């Protein structure tokens, strides 16, 4: 790794007259567990599922910085996004070991049909209540998922989950407190919270759908459908305390795990990837 330092320094000297700098792509350069860990193609696909969820959600939350209702929320959502970036880096790094690609290759050089994220994370930020509703659902789901993935037969996935679950616990708490506050606040905040939950609920079903990949990863992946009872049990008391009824309406088509996305994802990726694609290999 000392060579990395040297290459960055020498690359800096190579900046041309236009200020273009050629630098080796930065990577996490981490081994996540002791010993060798290369993902099989199926495990890599599963790591992409979880890593893309974290990456897309982090990108969404980053857009709140300087726009949240109060300064503390700028900081809170920024911190949550940073944790999610960390999870995405670990998961994409691991996914990339199967095909000899870096986390940056995967984040910046895939288009939306190659993304495996759920539709719920690509739903627009909306107003603050919409973002809180999305955080509430996703952090409760991910908490239940990572709690179980700690026992995965795949040691790298288990290590990432054991690290991430402690952080997601704080995300879950944050979203829960806001949901209660908005639902029990003014008439206006309550109306917005209820609207946000009902707008979002069609996308909850997809989270818990099993794909054929899951059958091939017995003991390694967590079966999504197996998480539904724990998720329902975890959110029920919050809805009760908020005095909000569980939304009950239509179910969206889904398809994120096989690369079918809504148009929202394309706009999000365009913004996330534009700099890398305009200046390949650039760094600072």
């Amino acid at each position, binding site marked *: 790794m000392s060579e990395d330092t040297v290459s960055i320094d020498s690359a800096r000297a190579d900046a041309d007259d236009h200020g273009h700098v050629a630098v080796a792509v930065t990577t996490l350069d981490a081994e996540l567990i002791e010993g060798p860990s290369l993902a099989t193609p199926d495990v890599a696909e599963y790591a992409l599922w979880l890593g893309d969820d974290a990456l897309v959600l982090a990108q969404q939350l980053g857009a709140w910085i300087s726009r949240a209702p109060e300064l503390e929320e700028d900081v809170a959502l920024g911190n949550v996004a940073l944790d999610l970036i960390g999870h995405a880096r670990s998961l994409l790094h691991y996914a990339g070991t199967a095909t000899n690609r870096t986390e940056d290759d995967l984040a910046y050089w895939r288009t939306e049909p190659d993304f495996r994220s759920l539709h719920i994370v690509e739903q627009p930020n909306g107003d603050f209540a919409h973002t809180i509703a999305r955080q509430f659902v996703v952090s409760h789901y991910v908490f239940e998922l990572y709690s179980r993935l700690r026992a995965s037969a795949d040691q790298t996935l288990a290590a990432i989950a054991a690290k991430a679950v*402690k952080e997601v*616990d704080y995300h879950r708490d944050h979203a829960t407190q806001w949901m209660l506050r908005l639902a029990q606040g003014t008439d206006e905040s309550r109306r917005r919270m209820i609207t946000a939950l009902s707008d979002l609920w069609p996308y909850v079903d997809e989270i818990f759908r099993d794909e054929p990949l899951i059958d091939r990863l017995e003991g390694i992946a967590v079966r999504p459908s197996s998480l539904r009872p*724990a998720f329902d049990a975890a959110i029920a008391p919050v809805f009760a305390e908020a005095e909000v009824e569980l939304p009950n309406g239509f179910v969206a088509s889904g398809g994120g795990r096989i690369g079918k996305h809504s148009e929202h994802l394309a706009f999000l990726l365009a913004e996330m990837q534009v700099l890398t694609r305009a200046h390949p290999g650039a760094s600072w």
Partner: protein
Amino acid sequence: MVTVAAHEAISRPRPIDAASLAAWTIAAQVVDPEIPILTIADLGVLRSVRVTSDAVAVTLTPTYSGCPAMDAMRDDVLAVLASAGYENVSVRLVLSPAWTTDWMSEIGKNKLREYGIAAPTGHATVRGSGPAGPIRLKMAVKCPRCSSLNTRELAHFGSTSCKSLYECRDCLEPFDYFKVL
């Protein structure tokens, strides 16, 4: 169940052999760029240093998954060992076992208080065998300025990933709290 001996090994990873210990002592001088009174040894981020005949292998573990200070700490470890004459130094980031504030040394906690940041109180998690996940224990946070326990959380997420924002209701000062993880 983790045995006491195994727990000691995890929480105090200082090497035994003289060559490794010498390199450890040097690497242990690297500080957290965001809280520069804390060394990576105080934090519990420095997990192992192994010196062999032709190489030095250092293992660090991140505090938070997305902590941007990790890259700086890694580079600083490489630099400090290189300037001490070590060649062929490698630094690896390892996620498992996951870092916890329980690994912060007592010296580190005292330094934090003197710096004006409340140190983590209590233990991070009660590790169950089931899938229930970690259970956080909430304890009163002591004001680093006047030592009052009459404090409250203003914002759970603070100036860095590892801190919350608190205020003291006696001396009325706001302060950072290094939250339990």
